[in-house]
């Protein structure tokens, strides 16, 4: 039987819990929309889904797929992720969606190629993924069939082995004593924005080399080189301070007056620009906390301009 003191204390704890819950809900609302669709759209932008799933250059319809990604393993065509029941993902259950995003497995049980960055999305929370699915199911369905990937022969047969070697499903979890802004930035950068998928060099089998996280690569998407964005002063962005990086993530403007172009401009225009200032600052906090890796991305030091010079 409960003593009056214990039950009073319980009521107090419950009341504090309610207040804390209310407070944190308030904070959450300040940092991102709190309705399901709004939250889904916010995550959609952070994750940049539209950049690959819309074939913008060829006038493709929103999220109807068909964008060609040339890789050393062949050409992949992004699939239709509109809620069309036949050609899109309209017939997917919530479980199908979770399995695709977190485990890289299609509803029919086949594995996805890691050109679809489930290697990063695996860290997304169920709450965010539910919201993302709700958002994706709110866009107009498009009756556009998927195009077959044009890969090296036998690639699909080796996929299970690749996943066994290089893929671990995970839940995003910051160390319990982590600074909340850092933790938020780590979550956004690694799971949603998936910076590493382009900025981290890959091994011969196309898996990201974890020890060179964000250290840049010559073999980025579309065969372009992608800069080292670790805080190394000579080969990375070590001369940028937190404000510089936060400003860049919003505007594309670098401290030396240059402006982002190419795919990064798309990432900013379609995504990062629409995040809250607090979230951009959080991403900057996380990126600048990473180990500085000295690594030149250009062909040779002779052809490489110093970072503070740029060419038009």
């Amino acid at each position, binding site marked *: 039987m409960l003593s009056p003191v214990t039950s009073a204390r319980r009521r107090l704890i419950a009341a504090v819990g309610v207040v804390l819950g209310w407070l944190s809900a308030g904070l959450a609302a300040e940092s991102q929309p709190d309705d399901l669709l709004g939250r889904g759209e916010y995550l959609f932008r952070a994750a940049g889904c539209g950049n690959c799933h819309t074939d913008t250059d060829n006038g493709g319809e929103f999220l109807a797929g068909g964008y060609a990604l040339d890789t050393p393993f062949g050409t992949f065509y992004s699939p239709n992720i509109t809620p069309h029941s036949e050609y899109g993902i309209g017939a997917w259950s919530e479980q199908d969606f979770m399995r695709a995003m977190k485990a890289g497995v299609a509803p029919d049980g086949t594995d996805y190629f890691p050109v679809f960055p489930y290697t990063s999305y695996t860290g997304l929370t169920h709450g965010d993924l539910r919201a993302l699915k709700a958002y994706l199911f709110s866009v107009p369905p498009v009756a556009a069939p998927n195009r077959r990937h044009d890969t090296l022969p036998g690639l699909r047969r080796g996929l299970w082995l690749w996943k066994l070697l290089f893929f671990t499903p995970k839940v995003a979890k910051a160390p319990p004593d982590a600074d909340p802004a850092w933790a938020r930035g780590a979550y956004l950068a690694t799971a949603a924005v998936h910076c590493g998928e382009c900025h981290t060099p890959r091994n011969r089998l196309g898996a990201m080399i974890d020890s060179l996280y964000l250290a840049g690569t010559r073999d980025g998407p579309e065969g372009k080189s992608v800069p080292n964005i670790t805080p190394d002063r000579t080969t990375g962005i070590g001369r940028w301070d937190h404000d510089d990086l936060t400003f860049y993530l919003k505007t*594309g403007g670098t401290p030396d007056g240059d402006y982002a172009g190419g795919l990064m401009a798309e990432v900013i225009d379609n995504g990062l620009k629409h995040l809250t200032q607090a979230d951009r600052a959080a991403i900057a906090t996380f990126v600048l906390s990473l180990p500085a890796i000295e690594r030149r991305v250009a062909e040779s030091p002779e052809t490489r301009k110093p970072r503070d010079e740029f060419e038009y």
Partner: protein
Amino acid sequence: MSHTVTQSWIRIVWVAGALVWGAVATAAEPEDIIKYRQSVMKSVGGHMGALTQIVRGKVEYPDDVQYHVESIARSMKTVLSLFPVDSDFGETRALESVWSKPDDFKKVAEAAAIAAGDLVQAYSKSSADIGEKFEALGEACKACHKDFREEDK
């Protein structure tokens, strides 16, 4: 009669020769145009970088703002002339699309020139209130770089 014909011919050859020589002498080498283009764009970038520090309140050089915004606007006014045909090879990050989609290029380049002009106007109205137009100009820079400049080389 044959005398005047000869004279006319001499004159024609002379004039034609002068024209050809003039054309050769005045047509800049594409490499030089590329170098010039890069220098102009770098100077625009330099002014933008300087403005970035001022607009974000990192440094205080209020007397320099006019110089920066006007320099950018002057360079941007003639930016299209920096991309003549034939200046599309070698050490340049200008993408083929500059010349294969000239109408699209013209649109974004002119938009950048207009944005630079707007910034000058905003400054002349209120020297303290240029943040919004500055951001709009940055957007215009990015819009052009997005489709017409190679990201990294």
